[in-house]
């Protein structure tokens, strides 16, 4: 609901932040690190509005928060994300947020699925779970091995016995050759889980929704929509049926909310608001 959280004018104010470190995973993907007091208080699953100064502003997941240093992991897909990927240490970007309702760490046996760049949001969630001494099972799907940006990190954590890690890829270059949701289906049949978390393409999320429902497991899924205002007023990111706004009521929704949303898994909206099939 638009009133779940009191609007914080200070976190909403635009801050120009200097990029203090850049980690590049490929030509098309980097994590940009910066310091920000509001972002360092963010909940996993919340997002920021990132302004490439003088150009467009886009919503971005928060992938890293560590000791006051925050990171966003950007994959170059459009003009703005390409520009963001070209940012080097010392350059600045505009930051607003954090915004929205993030993941709530519930239950004792978490299973999480990330697809594509959705791994950015899941990474921070994994971090927080490890801090709470939980043992998450993490499935990361990518089109190809080189697009699983945190693969090494998750392998290392797996070796230390801190989590179970199952990579998948569409082309079989890494882990099992299948979609992340197929791996989730397999895992659910093999072991008991009490919470499914998901972040990635909506088709994957819809599969997770189906799996969670059929197996009676609670779920929290992070949706993506074209966003303009980020503060719950322009209506651009509305989910029909429920009338929920992805920018403020979400981006993370539970199963009950998604059941009421007739657009979920079926339609998105263009910049003009036109309904498009997924």
């Amino acid at each position, binding site marked *: 609901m*638009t009133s779940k959280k009191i609007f914080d*004018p200070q976190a909403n104010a635009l801050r120009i932040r200097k990029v203090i470190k850049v980690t590049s995973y490929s030509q098309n993907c980097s994590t940009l690190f910066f310091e920000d007091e509001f972002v360092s208080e963010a909940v996993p699953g919340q997002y920021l509005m990132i302004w490439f100064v003088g150009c467009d*502003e886009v919503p971005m997941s928060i992938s890293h928060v560590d000791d006051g240093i925050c990171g966003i992991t950007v994959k170059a897909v459009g003009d703005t994300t390409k520009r963001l990927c070209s940012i080097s240490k010392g350059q600045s970007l505009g930051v607003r947020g954090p915004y929205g309702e993030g993941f709530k760490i519930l239950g004792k046996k978490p299973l999480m699925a990330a697809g594509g760049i959705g791994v950015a949001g899941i990474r921070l969630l994994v971090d927080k779970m490890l801090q709470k001494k939980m043992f998450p099972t993490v499935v990361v799907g990518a089109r190809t091995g080189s697009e699983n940006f945190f693969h090494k990190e998750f392998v290392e954590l797996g070796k230390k016995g801190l989590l179970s890690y199952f990579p998948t890829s569409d082309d079989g270059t890494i882990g099992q050759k299948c979609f992340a949701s197929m791996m989730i289906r397999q895992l659910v049949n093999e072991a008991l889980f009490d919470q499914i978390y998901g972040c990635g393409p909506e088709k994957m999320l819809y599969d997770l929704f189906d799996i969670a429902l059929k197996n009676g497991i609670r779920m929290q899924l992070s949706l993506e929509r074209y966003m303009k205002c980020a503060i719950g007023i322009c209506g651009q990111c509305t989910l029909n049926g429920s009338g929920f706004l992805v920018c403020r009521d979400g981006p993370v929704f539970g199963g009950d909310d998604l059941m009421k949303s007739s657009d979920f898994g079926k339609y998105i909206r263009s910049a003009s608001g036109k*309904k498009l099939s997924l």
Partner: protein
Amino acid sequence: MGLFINYRCKKKTKPFLLTCSRANITDMHPNFQTKVAGLVIDNPLILASGILGMTSSTIRRVANAGAGAAVTKSVGIKARDGYSNPSVYVIDSYGLINAMGLPNPGIDEFVKEFEGQIFNFPVIYSIFGSSPDEYSKVAKKLLALKPSAFEINLSCPHVKEVGSLIGQDPEMVYKVVNKVKNSVNVPVFAKITPNVSDVTSIAFSAVKAGADAIVAINTLKAMAIDIDAMKPILANKSGGLSGPAIKPVSIKMVYDLFESIDVPIVGVGGILSWKDAVEYLLAGASAVQIGSAIVWKGLEVFEEILAGLRKYMIEKNFSCLDEIVGRGHK
């Protein structure tokens, strides 16, 4: 043109509301019902255009939150993506600057979106265009949705005069309102821009053309510059200011309009609390619109304002809104 200059012709003598009957009203339940140009609204709080009203689901949600009516997002002939982001910027707790650029899916898609939807309160459809013909075409297509009323968004670029708004030219305002009024059979509200030297002359043109109510005001031209980036924040550089910052400006305009025009006024601009709403009623508004407040207060703002208004009416011994509207002029 004499038509447009002789506007201070009417001194209003009484408001245009329902006649209230004290006998039917208990002190615990003051009557919130209001009537704007024949449109009966259960309470005077209307969702302002541009806020949430893009789909039937959000409008229904606003109805459930307690609003008396809602105005949809403005729709035009063709789909428009609107301006790039940043398109909205909130300034602390007092203002919101937006330059959305009239994003809309175009009239045909819009009608598809709303087709077959039933609402339990009046829905007013906001329309825009770049010429009187365009406005009229959009309005006619919307008749299929059985609108309760139309709101004409006059803050749109003039197709023939680049840079100026239709709402800044009294003659164009007359032509647009007249064309729409002659194309439809439901009340037509004209939403006027404050970005003119004389708001009353613009409103007078709209009334002469047949507007059944005046909605005052649209946003004020504004800009915010980030001092570190040293650039305007909005992608469109400038935008329109709404929120508490514009309330005193709007109150004065509503007050002046009440003195000089003979149709109901819907007040809009910076209503965040019940006190703001009462101020508008006293200035002469028969109803008010709420938009930016949702940023700071969420949809609960409707119930909050109604609760405050109820308490105020009981304390002041008002049994219906009719007794408050325009009282600031007495």
